[in-house]
């Protein structure tokens, strides 16, 4: 039984792409613990397997071998429909390219997880507006993504990741599409709004300018965790 304060526990996680002798071994036995109430960074050079590990933890890829528990649930053993439901209820996503729907307004984009959970549209958008208000985007709630700056789009993405109050937030390179000042600002914001005692935030990045925001940094190289440091 996993400890409640542990959001993610990886034990000897492996992930291969392809099969037989041509298989690419991207994860080669990952052992990692992500506690709640903290912001954990997964860092390392390009191609070291960060994003693959994030995808496995988020239940978007199944590990080839090893044990994985997310919020106490062996996510990789769930039936696909249960895994989808689990993600919808418990995970929030922030993507590198934001992946906002261009035909939805900021408020509607932020409301998508609630709409996916069958909330009435009016109620969902209303809650999204409140959240955007807290993120300083009250006046941009009706703007479409192409009318927003990169930093504003990232804040909308934060709102979308947080609106359903998930217990694990996974962020993939949240500052790579932003300039240094904006990146710094959105990380401050993320830390302020996302880190909660019962919630874990896992950030994949290779942007060393934002390492100061991490409580814990897991260094990866060549498919392995090579070092874990705490700030």
């Amino acid at each position: 039984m996993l400890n409640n304060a542990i959001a993610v526990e990886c034990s000897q996680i492996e992930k291969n792409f392809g099969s037989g002798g041509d298989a690419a071994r991207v994860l080669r036995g990952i052992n990692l613990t992500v506690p709640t109430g903290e912001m954990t960074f997964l860092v390392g050079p390009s191609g070291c397997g960060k994003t693959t590990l994030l995808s496995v933890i988020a239940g978007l890829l199944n590990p080839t071998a090893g044990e994985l528990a997310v919020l106490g649930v062996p996510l990789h053993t769930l039936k696909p429909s249960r895994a989808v439901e689990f993600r919808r209820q418990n995970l929030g996503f922030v993507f590198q390219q934001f992946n906002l729907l261009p035909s939805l307004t900021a408020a509607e984009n932020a409301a998508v997880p609630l709409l996916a959970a069958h909330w009435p549209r009016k109620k969902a958008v209303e809650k999204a507006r409140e959240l955007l208000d807290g993120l300083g985007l009250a006046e941009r709630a009706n703007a479409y993504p192409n009318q927003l700056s990169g930093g504003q789009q990232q804040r909308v993405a934060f709102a979308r990741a947080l609106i359903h109050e998930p217990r694990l937030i996974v962020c993939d390179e949240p500052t790579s599409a932003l300039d240094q000042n904006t990146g710094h600002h959105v990380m401050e914001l993320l830390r302020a709004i996302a880190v909660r005692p019962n919630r874990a935030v896992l950030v994949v990045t290779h942007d060393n300018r934002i390492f100061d925001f991490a409580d814990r940094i897991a260094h990866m190289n060549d498919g392995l965790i090579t070092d874990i440091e705490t700030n």
Partner: protein
Amino acid sequence: MHFVAWQMLTGDRAKYLGLIFAIAFSTFLMSHQVSIFCGLMSRTASQIDDVRDASIWVMDAKTLYLDEVKALTDQDLYRIRGISGVEWAVPLFKGASRAKGPDGHFRAVILMGHDDSTLTGIPRRIVHGDITRLREPESIAIDQVGYEFFFPGQPYQLNRSLDLNDRTVRIVAIVDSNAPFVNLPVVYTRYTQALNFVGRERNQMSFVLAKAIPGLPEGELTGRIADRTGLKALTSSQFGWETIWYYMEHTGIPINFGITVIIALIVGTVVAGQTFYLFTIENLKQFGALKAIGVSDLRIVGMILMQALIVGAIGYGLGISMTAIFFETTQSNLDLRGFRLLPIVMQGTAATVFLIVFLASAFSVRRVIVLEPAVVFRG
């Protein structure tokens, strides 16, 4: 998520309109061409449809269709009248003649000769005049197309003269008849008078029109007539379809229209399918994000199908409206009479558009289903 699907669909106006117009054009082409085809085919049997008061047609045993007949003898008429179950039987002449107008314009006409005493089989939609005046000597009824040809732009007026095979005849009625296949004017007169107009031959009776006594099934009577006389006896409906099938099998009309309809189907499917597929591919990352966030495959399939059904329904509505408007605006054109949008064509086109939409969305659905949501983490 229906709202999200709707917004995704209409967000890209150019593609949205492109999809709708592809389906609308395809719908228009299919429904229009099929309607014209049905109209043309029904024209081949129009003179059978015009005969409302007799339900059985008797003809030479080798007759293939309405427009090519071998004359019966007067004896045949009497034999038919003698068969039990025949309430009455009357002769019908169908032939061709040449009519000349007062200004010298002439034209081949279809000449119909109806039983002198009963005038059985004359179209009952009288536009002007009195059909009973056909009992007067040298009198004819003419259809609207014929009147318009010989007296273009002039109001309907009775007692005007035409030359029919060098005999002067008077118009005593103008009738609204179904358009014949070749759209020639149709002249109606008494049977004996028609024979005089064309000049006597040994046998000139094209058909015998008969009616079964009340309670006797028409099919049974046609069998009896055929058995007793060796002639061919068909109900109006059977003869109509036999004539239509003759034209279907012996002319290039169905092939030409069929090709157009198939092209419309292929173009509609390919254009709508390709546009819809591209639309989905361009939104693949968004669909991936939705899958990652926790939207199930089933709901995403539902979103795509909803998008496809919306463009299908709007496109169909526009296309079928275009067809309806075409036939509505051409309704007053006498040369195009008989062409209309039939309910069955609307239903058939709707089913075909549904097929187009299904095919168009099937490939898109497949791409999204096999999409790994992890794609959203690949920059």
